[in-house]
Structure formats: structure tokens, C-alpha cells
């Protein structure tokens, strides 16, 4: 039953990869084997263009409980508890069918977290779409937001934060990255490695159908051009009800100590979960496809092995405990079947009844894929487009309103109100009330904060500086709520790494991520890579999405981002040196270009410590990181959130050499906008800017001074619903 050599190309394997498989097998693979190799040797599973780079990332730290290589990373939060977290992309499925693509993205990341024995306690998401004047972008946004809400709301895990950016390069290849956090008793956590020769392999959850066959390989490794829409395979359909039963079932099984190991079935289905479990445990595994519960009776063995049907988990169980395991599955009305056994053969064997239909060495299948070096070349200039939407000579007031109404800057309330942010009784800070989400952990007597960030436009301008900024922005967001970073996860969304310019972006970005994490002392506990994100116009903006989790001792001592009371002083803390390079204003003026100033990581880290300590001591009424749209937008956001105006003078920034428009709208790392008692703020090294009060946002900035009524600013900032639903403000 061997197959012609042409088949491997359709499955995404190169000729030399195919030859290597033949060499390792000592013969040509049959259909089942070729299908399985093509999945495990795909970019998605083998990280063949990124694995070498990722070795630079620091992964160790005192608080790390689980690092990369497990279903999710985890950090110790005290009292015998750990917080697990991971971010993962579901970009290509979402570009095909945004509702199901985003929904199953949430389902997948939830399974990664409960696979290690942690109960999911929060979801965040990081989304990228094209500009909202495009019907396609509005359709993708609407579908993705509904899909995320549908899955998370139905399963009872709160969605506590995230970010959405709208940029033209994402028009044909939107990004849907979902992050999940879970809480576990450290002693009850379980790894994914299969162990115990003779132990039973149990498949739990939904039955197996033809969903997403060829998905992981074809979807994640092929670039899509114009007119290729029909070639995209069917996306998987999610069933959050099934997942909620599987979740409760798995957690009950783990609490009762009935499982040796547990793994979710994600991309590449049974193939990757069985292969990776065997590889991690240094054992072999036999899977009998005749025992897999099917939705369609006539499925071929290879289809069963590569199916991406959702809501399935694979467990290794001691034979004596199998009846108890099946009884718990029965209680939760979820499927279960004994489909295989752990062996000492070092082989993955696929059987159909008594017949062997595939047999491969575990090592060759899981770790045998060649890893490639990138061939990076720095492009000479700005390789993306520019589109001016602001006329030259626009007044500073109108520039502020245009920035506040920019969908990337505007309030995301329209989106986050479609998500349940309160279920679970942990959410101390709901979306947009503070720079980071804050969740209380009564189990360990403290709280965690979490932030997810990654401004692709700035990374496009300068992959190195932009990536450092993404890490710093997370650190600043955590500092604003008084949290100290414990660990970081990331999702690297890039274009085709075989193209030199994209290879250069990826190379620069990963090096910067490593440098920033090292300098801040934050370990990388997990991550995900999504490559080949391209449309007919070219690659997406390089988008490393960073998710950072921090700890704070007292959930009652958390600053919000909104001003609190008229009369409070407003100050700027940190080494903020704004420029228009890569800013939202530069985008609107059509002036984007290559290059960003290099951030001073150590100085920003020092400012983070000052702000964090001040928040913990209750010294700040509000704290807000200066980000998209610069200081003027940060001031407007803090004012709108409070329903109180402000009066400030940006002379101190001009004294640092900023032009008026740089002081108003320039962007860069290291700026904290804080309010409180003037003496306290100045003792922290804060530069006094003005006071909270009045009903307008009044900003003195030389010849570009601004006075905008609070109501006017608020209508601009709250214009996303109209833009999302009709494309206009």
C-alpha cells in the first residue's frame, strides 16, 4: 500500500523531507504513515523554521513549575497553587470561518490548560483585522467576537481582557490569538508524557468525524493566493457544551488521581497527541482505529488519525483504574473508549482490529523533522503601504478626535460586552477599568494580573525595538495594577519565513524577545508560532503577541486607569521620550517608515518598580500606561473613564526636547500617566503636568494646544459600535 512520490508534495512535504522519511523508515511510507509524517513534520507541529531561534529564549526561573514543551506553562503563586497559561493562534481557520475558527481557537486553548490539571479561570484574546471600511473586515470581526463569546460564555470561563488592532495588512489574514489561564494545585498537575508499559490509552470526549482533515498541514503551511478560497478545507465545528463536560470530567479524574497522563487533541488530532505523548515518555504506543468512536462509519484509518474533531482528550490509565475512569466519563455524559496501549517498542503502531496499518519509529515521527536555518535579509526600506486619512493642516483638536476614534485606539466595549467577564467571582478589574486584568485567588490569598500586547505596526517599523516595546508594555500594564511579572507566553504571528524579509523580522523579533525577557528576569514558559500569514498583497505585519502574568499581594490595592477625583494632581513617571515614528498619528498621516528609537529596558524596568510599589502602597489614585495615540489619548482615556476633565501643560516634555506634536501624540515605551497627591507623585520622581477637574480635556502644548469637551472626546472614543456594524462613525 505504498504511495506515489507526488502525494507528499500535496501534503506539504519537500522532496528531501520525503527522502529522509524513506531513509528513516527503510522503506516508502504507506498512506497512513505519510499522512501522519506530513502532519508532524509540518511547520505547525515541528516548528521547523523557528525552533532554532526559540532556543535563545530564557525559560528558567524560581517560580516556573512547568516550562515549554508541556501543554501549557505554569508558575507558582504560593500556598501550593500554580497558575498555568498559554496563548495560541487560530488565524487560518478564522480567516475561513471567523465564528467557528475563533470559537474552536478558544476551545483548543482551554483544553491545553485543563490538560495539565488546571481549572481555566480566564480567557484573553488578541485580534487583528483589516480596516473597518472593508466589509470583509467587519464580517471577520463580528464573527470572531461572536465566536469567542459563544465558546467562552457557554463554558463559564470569564473573558477578562485583550486587544484588537485594525491594519490593512491583516485584511486577508486576520489574527485570532486566544490566551487562557488556569489554576491548579501544584501536586495535582499532570504532564503529557505517556508512561507505564502496558497502560491503557483512553480517548475521551466527542466522537471523531472528518473535520479539518489535512487541516494542520495544509492550513498552516500553505500560503493562500487570490481565488484559493475554495481550496481551504472545511473548518472544525466547536461544541462548548461537550467541552464543558469533558473539562469537568478530566478535572474530576485528575483530582481522584486516576490518570497517569493527559493530552488534548488539537491540530493534527490523534497523530500528534499519541506521537507526542510517546515521544515525551520515551515509550511506544499502539492505537487501534477500529476502537475509535466515529461519527461517520466509513472513515479510513488515515482519516481517523488526522481528524481534527474538537473536544477530545487522550489519557494514559493504569489498567486496574480503567473501570473507574469510564464511570466518571459516564457520569459526565461524555464519550470514552479504550483505543490503545503503551508499549516498549519505541514505535507508533496503528492497527485496525488485528491488522497493522502503519508503523513508525517514534523518534523519526516526532523529532525527526529537519530544522531549517532562516536566510534573513534586512529590507532597505518600509515594505508595507501607507494610506493618509488625515489631511495636512488638521488642527490638534481634530487630530486628537481622529486618534480617539481610530478603531485600534477607541474603546473596545462593543467587543468585550459580548463576553462574560464576571463568571467565577475572581474578576477584580473588568476590561478597560485598569491596564491589566486582575483576578483574585482566594486559594493562595493573593491575586494575579494579566496583560496581552503586541503592536504589529511598530514591530513592522522595527522588529527589534517593536518587540521589546511589546514586552515592556505588558510589564508596564502589570505595574499599573501593582503586579510583578512571574512569567510570559507568546504567539509569534509572521508571514512566510522562506522569504528573506520575513525571516529577518522573525530573527530580529525573537532575539529582542529573548533580550527583553532576560533583562526583566521574566521566563518564557510557553509559546506558539504561526507562520505563512500572508494575503495576495504580501505578509501581515510581524506580530509577536506577548501575554504576561504577574502577582500582586493584595487585590484590594489595585489602581484603575481612570482619574478618580477633581483636584488630584497629574504627573508623568518614567523615561518617556515620545516620537511620531510608527505612531497612530504617523499611520493616519500616511507617514509610516522604517525605524524606531531603541527603548532603554533597564530604565523602563526601574520606572515599573516605582509605579508598582506606589500602587501597592496605595499612593496612586490612578495609573495608566501611555500607549497608542500618545499622552493626549492617555489623558483623554483617564478623563473619559472618570467623567471628569483635566488641565495639563506638556512643557516638561518640551523641556526634554519634544516638539508639541511629539509631546501630544508621540509614542514610545516608559510613560506612566498617574494621578494622586502632588507631593506623593513628585516624591516618586513624577513630573507634574496638571490637575484633574473641569468638563474638558485641556492640554497646553505651545502652538498645538488642545481644548476638547469631555462629551465630544467621549463620542469619538465610543464610536467603535458604529464602525464595527456599518463602517462609519
Amino acid at each position, binding site marked *: 500500500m505504498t504511495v506515489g512520490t507526488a502525494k507528499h508534495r500535496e501534503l506539504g512535504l519537500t522532496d528531501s523531507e520525503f527522502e529522509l522519511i524513506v531513509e528513516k523508515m527503510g522503506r516508502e511510507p504507506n498512506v497512513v504513515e505519510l499522512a501522519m509524517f506530513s502532519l508532524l513534520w509540518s511547520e505547525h507541529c515541528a516548528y521547523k523554521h523557528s525552533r532554532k531561534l526559540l532556543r535563545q529564549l530564557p525559560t528558567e526561573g524560581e517560580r516556573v513549575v512547568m516550562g515549554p514543551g508541556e501543554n501549557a506553562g505554569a508558575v507558582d503563586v504560593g500556598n501550593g497553587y500554580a497558575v498555568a497559561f498559554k496563548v495560541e493562534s487560530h488565524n487560518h481557520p478564522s480567516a475561513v470561518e471567523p465564528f467557528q475558527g475563533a470559537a474552536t481557537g478558544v476551545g483548543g486553548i482551554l483544553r491545553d490548560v485543563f490538560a495539565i490539571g488546571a481549572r481555566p479561570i480566564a480567557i484573553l484574546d488578541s485580534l487583528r483585522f483589516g480596516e473597518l471600511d472593508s466589509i470583509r473586515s467587519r464580517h471577520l470581526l463580528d464573527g470572531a467576537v461572536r465566536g469567542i*463569546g459563544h465558546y467562552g460564555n*457557554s463554558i*463559564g470561563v470569564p473573558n477578562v481582557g485583550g486587544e484588537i488592532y485594525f491594519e490593512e495588512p491583516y485584511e486577508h489574514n486576520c489574527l485570532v490569538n486566544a490566551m487562557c489561564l488556569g489554576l491548579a494545585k501544584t501536586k495535582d498537575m499532570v504532564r503529557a508524557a505517556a508512561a507505564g508499559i502496558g497502560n491503557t490509552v483512553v480517548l475521551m470526549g466527542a466522537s471523531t468525524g472528518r473535520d479539518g482533515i489535512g487541516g494542520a498541514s495544509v492550513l498552516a503551511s500553505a500560503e493562500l493566493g487570490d481565488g484559493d478560497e475554495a481550496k481551504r478545507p472545511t473548518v472544525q465545528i466547536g461544541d462548548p457544551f461537550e467541552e*464543558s463536560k469533558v473539562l469537568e470530567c478530566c478535572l474530576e479524574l485528575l483530582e481522584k488521581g486516576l490518570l497517569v497522563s493527559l493530552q488534548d487533541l488539537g491540530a493534527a488530532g490523534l497523530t500528534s497527541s499519541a506521537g507526542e505523548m510517546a515521544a515525551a515518555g520515551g515509550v511506544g504506543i499502539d492505537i487501534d482505529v477500529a476502537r475509535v468512536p466515529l461519527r461517520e462509519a466509513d472513515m479510513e484509518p488515515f482519516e481517523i488519525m488526522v481528524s481534527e474533531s474538537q473536544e477530545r482528550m487522550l489519557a494514559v490509565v493504569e489498567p486496574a483504574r480503567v473501570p473507574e475512569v469510564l464511570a466518571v466519563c459516564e457520569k459526565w455524559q461524555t464519550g470514552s473508549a479504550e483505543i490503545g496501549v503503551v508499549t516498549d517498542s519505541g514505535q507508533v503502531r496503528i492497527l485496525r482490529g488485528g491488522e497493522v496499518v502503519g508503523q513508525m519509529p517514534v523518534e523519526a515521527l516526532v523529532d525527526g523533522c529537519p530544522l531549517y536555518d532562516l536566510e534573513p535579509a534586512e529590507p532597505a526600506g518600509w515594505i508595507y503601504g501607507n494610506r493618509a486619512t488625515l489631511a495636512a493642516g488638521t488642527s490638534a483638536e481634530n487630530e486628537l478626535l481622529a486618534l480617539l476614534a481610530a478603531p485600534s485606539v477607541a474603546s473596545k466595549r462593543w467587543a468585550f460586552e*459580548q463576553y*462574560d467577564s*464576571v*463568571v467565577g*467571582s*475572581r474578576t477584580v478589574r473588568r476590561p478597560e477599568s485598569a491596564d491589566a486584568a486582575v483576578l483574585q485567588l482566594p486559594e493562595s490569598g493573593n491575586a494575579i494580573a494579566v496583560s496581552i500586547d503586541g503592536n504589529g505596526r511598530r514591530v513592522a517599523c522595527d522588529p527589534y525595538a517593536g518587540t521589546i516595546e511589546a514586552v515592556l508594555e505588558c510589564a508596564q500594564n502589570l505595574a499599573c495594577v501593582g503586579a510583578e511579572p512571574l512569567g510570559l507566553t507568546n504567539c509569534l504571528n509572521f508571514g512566510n519565513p522562506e522569504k528573506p524579509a520575513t525571516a529577518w523580522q522573525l530573527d530580529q523579533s525573537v532575539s529582542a524577545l529573548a533580550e527583553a525577557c532576560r533583562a526583566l528576569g521574566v521566563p518564557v514558559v510557553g509559546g506558539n508560532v504561526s507562520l505563512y500569514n500572508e494575503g495576495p498583497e504580501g505578509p501581515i505585519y510581524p506580530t509577536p503577541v506577548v501575554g504576561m502574568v504577574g502577582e500582586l499581594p493584595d487585590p484590594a490595592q489595585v489602581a484603575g486607569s481612570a482619574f478618580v477625583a477633581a483636584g488630584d494632581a497629574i504627573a508623568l513617571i518614567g523615561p518617556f521620550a515620545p516620537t511620531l515614528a510608527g505612531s497612530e498619528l504617523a499611520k493616519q498621516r500616511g507617514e509610516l517608515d522604517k525605524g524606531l528609537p531603541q527603548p532603554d529596558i533597564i530604565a523602563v524596568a526601574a520606572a515599573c518598580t516605582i509605579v508598582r510599589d506606589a500602587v501597592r502602597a496605595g499612593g496612586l489614585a490612578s495609573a495608566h500606561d501611555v500607549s497608542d495615540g500618545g499622552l493626549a489619548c492617555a489623558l483623554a482615556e483617564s478623563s473619559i473613564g472618570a467623567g471628569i476633565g483635566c488641565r495639563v501643560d506638556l512643557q516638561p516634555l518640551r523641556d526634554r526636547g519634544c516638539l508639541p506634536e511629539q509631546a501630544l501624540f508621540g509614542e514610545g515605551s516608559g510613560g506612566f500617566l498617574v494621578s494622586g497627591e502632588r507631593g506623593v507623585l513628585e516624591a516618586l520622581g513624577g513630573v507634574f503636568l496638571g490637575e484633574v477637574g473641569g468638563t474638558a480635556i485641556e492640554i497646553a502644548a505651545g502652538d498645538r494646544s488642545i481644548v476638547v469637551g469631555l462629551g465630544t472626546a467621549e463620542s469619538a472614543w465610543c464610536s467603535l459600535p458604529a464602525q464595527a456594524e456599518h463602517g462609519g462613525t
Partner: protein
Amino acid sequence: MKWAVLQFPGSCDERDALQACTLASGEARLIWHEERDLGDVEAVVIPGGFSYGDYLRAGAIARFSPAMEAVAEFAAAGGPVLGICNGFQVLCEAGLLPGALLLNESMRFVCRQVDLVPIAPLDALSTPGGAQSNERREGRRLSIPAKHGEGRYYAPEDMLDALEVNGQVAYRYASDHNFNGSARGIAGVRNEAGNVVGLMPHPEHAVDPLTGSTDGLRVFEAVAAARARA
């Protein structure tokens, strides 16, 4: 006070409800949907979530569970029952409360802090014949989160009139807070006997100052007070 919180496959807020019951008064335990015996329970909470995935219609399948049969008997004997969100939908489907909950007017799931006006919570004395005006018994507003996609209260006009006359409108959205388009701003209703109440917003998510508000405790306290009086 001994509370029972029902748990169906697909329930989401049952742990939050347990905690709220305990904070309000007494002890609480989960009752699995297959249990037919409520034991010595003094009040029942049917929590929010998506029981049985909300497939077919929200609450349509959960009402046939053994635990719901037990709840129907418990309610018929005068025991206080509180249905929250999906629990309210289940009670309406089971015929223990009048009306139905339809898709929000916006067709979107909405999670938002809303103000509720208590009109006739369970601790308000029932007024057969509706001699007393509902409006006169309005209590202090409660700030409570609502989160649902299908929470637009509906009943035919004559039924709505009867509910008002009988003092069965338990909670109303404050003006400008009726985001789902409910008939006459109704957020919660109670049965004629005055021992079964359902509401769409989630009082169990308003029991901790750290997470936003403690007004939800008053809803649970009203249920406890009804028990004490019975």
C-alpha cells in the same frame, strides 16, 4: 439555613451561587441533576449557565431532569426557589413561573452592570388581589451584573397586566437599563404563591466589594427571609 444549588451539565455559575448562599446565610451544597432527593434543604437555587448547551431552547431540556421534578414538588409545598438567568429560563420552561425569555433585541450576548429596582422580591409580603400598588413597595436600587443572550422577558399583554395586579413583578430594570428589550422592563418575576422567583441578572456575582458590588446579597437574603416567614 440549608441551601441547595442545582448543577446540570453545562451549568456555569453554580460555584458562584454556592458562595453567595453561604455569604448570605448558612450552608449550601450542589445537587447533581440526576438526584431525585433534595433531603432537608430549605431553599433551592437554580444557577446560571447553559444547561444541556441551551440546545433546542434555553432551559427546555433541563426542566425534565429528576432534580427539577424534586424542585417542582418542593415549590408546590411552599419551599422558596430562586432561578438566576438560565435558572429563570428553566423555571419558565417548567411552568413554575409565567412568561418566556427571548433573544435580546440586539441579538448579541451582553455582559453589563445594570441597576435593578426591587418591586416584589420574595421577602415582600404577597398581596392577593393586588390591593397595594407595586410602585409603593419599590426598594433601593441594586447594582448587579447581567450577562445573557436570551433574556428579553415576554408574556402576552393580558398576562403582563395580571402579573402587575397580582404583585408578581419581582424586579424591574431601572430606566435606561433595560438593554435586552424586556416587556415593561421586567427583569424578574415571581409565582402567584410568592415562593418562586426568577431573574435574569446575576445576584451571585454581586456579593463581594472587590468584584464590584454586594447588592446581590439582598436577593439571597430575601429568599432566606421568605423561608423564615413560611
